[in-house]
């Protein structure tokens, strides 16, 4: 593959859910690039398609009902969408690592920590069992597992949520992947442990120059971790900007609403939070025009019939909104 290729380059990715109630576009034309050492946060409320985007990129969609129906996912220059599952088995865990929200469900409950890490290493590297065990211990130390040597023999249920997440991180980075996808990796954790895990992820990423997609619904976590932010609504990217620009001058009314609805300690205290009326529409009942129209303060006639496309309002920024593009 060309050495100049970006670690991750997604173009017009489309994932559809084929259900009894009809076809639903869960990911509707997502384009996204992530450079080496860069963290792109994917944010949006529950059901907006963050996890299905991640699962599409990993080629781990539950099929049925979900299937990629279009687009490319280029990993280090190679489109992995058409690849057979056997090839994906060699890519997942090696070129692209993943961390999911619920730590317990991503670990094998009946295998020790050591066995699970060793398995990853032996699948993807030339290491023999003995070397892999040594490496497993090193990895546990690297992810800051307290009392690492003793924890090698532990089963997941004997560990706290934070420790399980460290094991999963150790497995995800075991083969030094160029891309790491973390889907709500700290949502189930307490704040002090969340801070530990976020600091760990940032450090591992910086040391290895990994490209990271960080999925979260928490704008606080976005502000703490991201370089660039992609805001999703109803399966589509509605805004993209650097983290500073997004928080300083959000353009899409949905982004404005999300930021206004999030209390920020230390910032000037608003009397009332700026709430967004209504809620996220179900995918099988999306409005005809802009999906945000029923909740939008700036809605115009045009929004009810036409879907806004992404436009470039300024360098490095994207927004899909008629009001924002018109200024």
């Amino acid at each position, binding site marked *: 593959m060309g050495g100049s290729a970006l670690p991750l380059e997604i173009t017009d990715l489309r994932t559809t859910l084929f259900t009894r109630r009809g076809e639903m576009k869960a990911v509707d034309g997502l384009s996204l690039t992530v450079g080496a050492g860069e963290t792109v946060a994917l944010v949006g*409320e529950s059901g907006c398609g963050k996890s299905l985007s991640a699962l599409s990129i990993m080629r781990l969609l539950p099929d049925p009902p979900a299937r990629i129906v279009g687009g490319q996912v280029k990993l280090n220059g190679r489109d992995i969408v058409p690849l057979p599952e056997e090839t994906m088995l060699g890519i997942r865990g090696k070129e692209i690592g993943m961390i999911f929200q619920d730590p317990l469900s991503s670990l094998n409950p009946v295998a020790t920590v050591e066995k699970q890490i060793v398995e990853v290493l032996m699948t993807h590297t030339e290491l023999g069992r003995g070397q892999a065990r040594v490496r497993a211990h090193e990895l546990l130390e690297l992810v800051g597992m307290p009392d690492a040597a003793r924890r090698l023999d532990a089963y997941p249920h004997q560990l706290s949520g934070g420790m399980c997440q460290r094991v999963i991180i150790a497995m995800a980075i075991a083969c030094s992947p160029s891309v790491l996808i973390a889907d709500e990796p700290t949502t189930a954790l307490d*704040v002090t442990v969340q801070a530990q895990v976020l600091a760990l992820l940032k450090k591992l990423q910086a040391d290895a120059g990994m490209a990271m997609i960080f999925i979260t619904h928490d704008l606080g976590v976005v502000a*703490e971790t991201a370089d660039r932010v992609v805001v999703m609504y109803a399966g589509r990217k509605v805004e993209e900007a650097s983290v500073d620009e997004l928080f300083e001058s959000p353009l899409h009314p949905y982004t404005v609403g999300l930021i206004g609805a999030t209390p920020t300690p230390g910032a000037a205290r608003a009397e009332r939070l700026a709430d967004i009326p209504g809620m996220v529409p179900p995918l099988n009942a999306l409005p005809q025009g802009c999906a945000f129209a029923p909740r939008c303060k700036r809605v115009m006639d045009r929004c009810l019939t036409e879907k806004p496309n992404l436009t470039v309002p300024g360098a490095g920024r994207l927004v899909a909104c008629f009001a924002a593009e018109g200024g």
Partner: protein
Amino acid sequence: MSLLSLRDVRVQFNTAGGVVRAVNGVSLDLAVGETLGLVGESGCGKSTLGKAIMKLVPVAGGEIVVEGVDIAPLNREQLTEMRRKVQMIFQDPYGSLNPRSTVGRSVAQPLVLAGWKADATAERVETLLRWVGLPSDAKQRYPHEFSGGQRQRIGIARALALSPKLIICDEPVSALDVSVRAQVINLLEDLKSQFGVSYLFISHDLSVVEHIADRVAVMYLGMLFEIGGRDQIWKSPQHPYTKALLAAAPIANPKLARARQRTVLQGELPSPLNPPPGCPFNSRCPMAQDRCRVEKPVLRPVSNGAQAACHFV
């Protein structure tokens, strides 16, 4: 007189692994019209303290005084009167609503139990639904037909039914999406200014508590570590754990987030079955000394005008 006054309240559970002192000597006061935020990490005893005030768990010791009356020794009938004054809403409104009961019947239930007549009840239910922003036809529908935010509104309507003085809100917005969370927080604030109701607002989300609370209490392994005015706690926290907790909370502002110096607290919450002797924070505290491992600190006034339980502040 305080609306609610807790003195050395204790709750313990006997489990297979031993005794868990979920609430281990908590004292605090809550004034009329005040919102007191109760924060702390999972398992520190926040919900148990809320349930103790509602007498939903057996109280092993201490006084729980509501408007001057100690409710610990009360019988059933006397408790009914107290329950009118103090209501509770929960994190998962789905779990606390009867799935086979229409919303109208769920909201009416406290009124019916209090002996209200049918027509007065019906009228009151209409009013309550209007206050919390639910359509009137919600009465005939079932909880599963509503979203999380709407179910939380149903829970709030029911809690308001008998015009309580105090509502204990146990993580009322933790299961909600950001935009809906803001709707429910605004609703709670509107109801407070309209009816003068007070809240004990339990949450692990510090930014929500900073927004809504007048005063804040910080809990760790069954103990109160610090309690004081919101600004006292946020601008000049005194207790090492409060400092660590605030430093760990993400801030939704990249510039502020970068500007603050962040020392990440190491280690995790010890098992409540086997808390460290002395100060329960000593296994993680950057300031811990020998004394902390033998002597348990007590809450006392400190320099920021708040109260803290630490030997060295």
